[in-house]
């Protein structure tokens, strides 16, 4: 992830709207993709991106100019997405359960992206956040840890677990067929994930 000219950030923090606009434009595309993968909805992502930028604008005076601007910005974005989801956690869990059934019914010729998005939606929130932060933003574990607010080892472990689950889902068709009336397995619970995390 590229970093902006520090002078631009300082000017934006001093209230220079043109400087802030250049920051918005610089991160608009990765911001949209990041939030899209976090919340699974392109239009919700668009609204969250606006919210994230406005939060960033209000808090620019708190930015430590020796830190990386992009990780600071994407942490705000991730928190905005988290706040939006926290509003109705029960609903989020229901959506996860609903989505968990989806990969088994993806048509044979569905594009991988569609299939993968369904599988991503079925991941627990911590796994999805870690996976998206590393894969979509291209951060290493240290920067991703800064965005997510968790230890570096936790990021590493969550990304690995997410990859294993995604690969398993994508290869589900290779496994023996399950009984037709067997309900879909629930997604791995956060507690089970936490037990294997490296600290």
């Amino acid at each position, binding site marked *: 992830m590229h970093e902006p000219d520090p002078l631009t950030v300082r000017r934006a923090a*001093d*209230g*220079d*709207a*043109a400087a802030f*606009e250049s920051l*918005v434009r610089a991160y*608009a*595309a990765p911001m*949209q*993709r990041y939030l*899209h*993968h976090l919340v699974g909805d*392109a*239009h919700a992502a*668009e*609204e969250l*991106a*606006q919210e994230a*930028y*406005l939060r960033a*604008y*209000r808090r*620019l*005076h708190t930015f430590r100019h020796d830190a990386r601007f992009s990780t600071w910005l994407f942490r705000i974005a991730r928190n905005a997405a988290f706040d939006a989801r926290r509003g109705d956690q*029960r*609903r989020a869990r*229901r*959506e996860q359960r*609903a989505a968990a*059934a989806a990969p088994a019914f*993806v*048509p044979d*010729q569905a*594009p*991988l*992206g*569609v299939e*993968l*998005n369904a599988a991503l939606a079925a991941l627990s929130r911590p796994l999805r956040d870690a*996976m*998206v932060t*590393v*894969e*979509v933003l*291209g951060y*290493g*574990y240290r920067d991703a840890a800064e965005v997510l607010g968790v230890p570096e080892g936790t990021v*590493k472990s969550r990304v*690995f677990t997410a*990859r*294993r689950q*995604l*690969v398993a889902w*994508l*290869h589900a068709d290779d496994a023996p067929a399950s009984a*037709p*009336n067997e*309900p*879909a397995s629930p997604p791995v619970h956060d507690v089970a994930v936490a037990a294997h995390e490296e600290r």
Partner: protein
Amino acid sequence: MASDRRCEHTQRQLSAAFDGEPTGAPAREHLDSCPRCSAFRLELGRLRAVLREDAAVPSGALERTTAAVMAAIPDASPIRHAPRPAGTAKRVGAVVIALAATAAALTASTAGAGADLADRLAAAQRRLTSFAAEVTVVEHGIAHTGRLEYHAPERFDLQLGDRRVVIADATAWYSGPDGASATVGRAPASRSWVAPAEVVLPVSAAVVRAGGPRVRHVVHDGEAAIAVTTTVAGAGPILNGLRPGPGWRPLHPTDRVELFLDPTWLTPLEVDVQAAGSVDRLRWAKRLGLPEHAGARITRIVLSGARHGTTPLGTAGPPPLPAPPPPAGAAVVDEGFRATDAATGLTPRWLPAGFTPYRFGTLPSQGGTPIAVATYTDGAAWISVRTIHTWRATRLFGIDGAPVRPLRLGSGVGYVTDDGNAVALHAPGWDSVVTGSVGTAELVAVAESLAEQPEAVPASWPEAAASTIGSLRQADPTALVPRAGRTSDAAVTTGAAITEIAVSRGTTTFTLSQARGDTTPRWPTGNETRPVTVRATTGSWSPDTGELVWTEGARLRRLQSDTLGLSDLLRVAADLRPAAS
């Protein structure tokens, strides 16, 4: 077991190495001999490629985001700002300043737009008397261009390529490459053709309730606009009205619709349809041989160069719109409306301000006396009262069996349909229905002012079982009901064997049927029925019939919708609560 641990260790190493972390090299001999680990290694690259490239950015999203953020900055209240240099304001640029001013004005003029847009659209129908615009419809990469002209309350002329629809008083006709058809003797505000006002001011698409469309202020093509996100099911009238005749590409009811409205007039600027991403939608597209991917824009309708008119039209009705006769050879159907000089049925003693008589007449009925039709308009919106004196069927007149909820009207009883678009009345010797393009409250007030007092329907009529959500607390306490906020307008039927709740609000339209004492699983009969988890039990889902069925509390429950997909119905199901709670 040892092999599993070996695989996990190897795959952890592969994962970390793939992210550029220093790690010991995975054992080559294990990788070469283990298909699972080899596949894992291959998938790492594929996952990354898809994740980095796949997230489709909606058309114009980046520009919209930038413009919206910059427009909102003056109101973002930064906690601390250094004094702005004198020249900075100029550098910000006229566009930002203009957008900010527009956004501020917009906020002031449309405060609470999400909650009241439907009301504002209904109000706009009362002041807009004419509208004209160039129309472009793009599908499959082909642009169809033409022109729309509208004169309130229901004159409509859309020419789009080689297709044309004309509605003018008692005549309506269509002509296109597939042939021509016409209706004569058309009743005022007949629903047999496109509802012109719904195309120009799409009230039903913008009905905002829980679970309904989202409304927000945006900058669209550099101009302020109101964006309504709904579905094809919710935007049916405008999509059908602007894509006349057969031959257009099929749209799935759950496809997403972005409707951009002029912030001043609330008339449409653009209608975008994007393919939904559900598995059922994918299957549907595959069956039809449609190649689009989720999120792809599949239909785009642009209305440009709009002209709006608000000339008061008085009581004489709108000025004549040149209405060419139907093309020769058109298949003609006579709806049977015959104008009369005065009303021959019930007439209201109260009308909304500005409403005056529009057209009176009669329609034939099967085996009975004619149906008396009285219509009223303020030059833009309309209200219709239909009355029959010899209704012989054993159900309410004029609503085609739609679910209803009972409503007290003075000392009598009326019945409002679940969509709020009609009030049906019954009394010995007459039956009547009030419809119109005004709000439900005004329809109810008109119905209440009719000269006769309505009564409850006979016990043998299906509407005799009509009830309300609140009454289920005693009548059927183990029934599940939608959560509060969605239920006030629900139509409830409590029969001896089944309780049925119909909810119709914008795109949130569904029916919940609950058998009494029946636990026999009767799965849906669609072709692609499959098991799903619903309310922590295993139920069944049929995308063909839109049915979600499960057994809970020794009762068979069935949710059905023609407009909601599985994930939406699962949300509705998850939100249900016992009536007694």
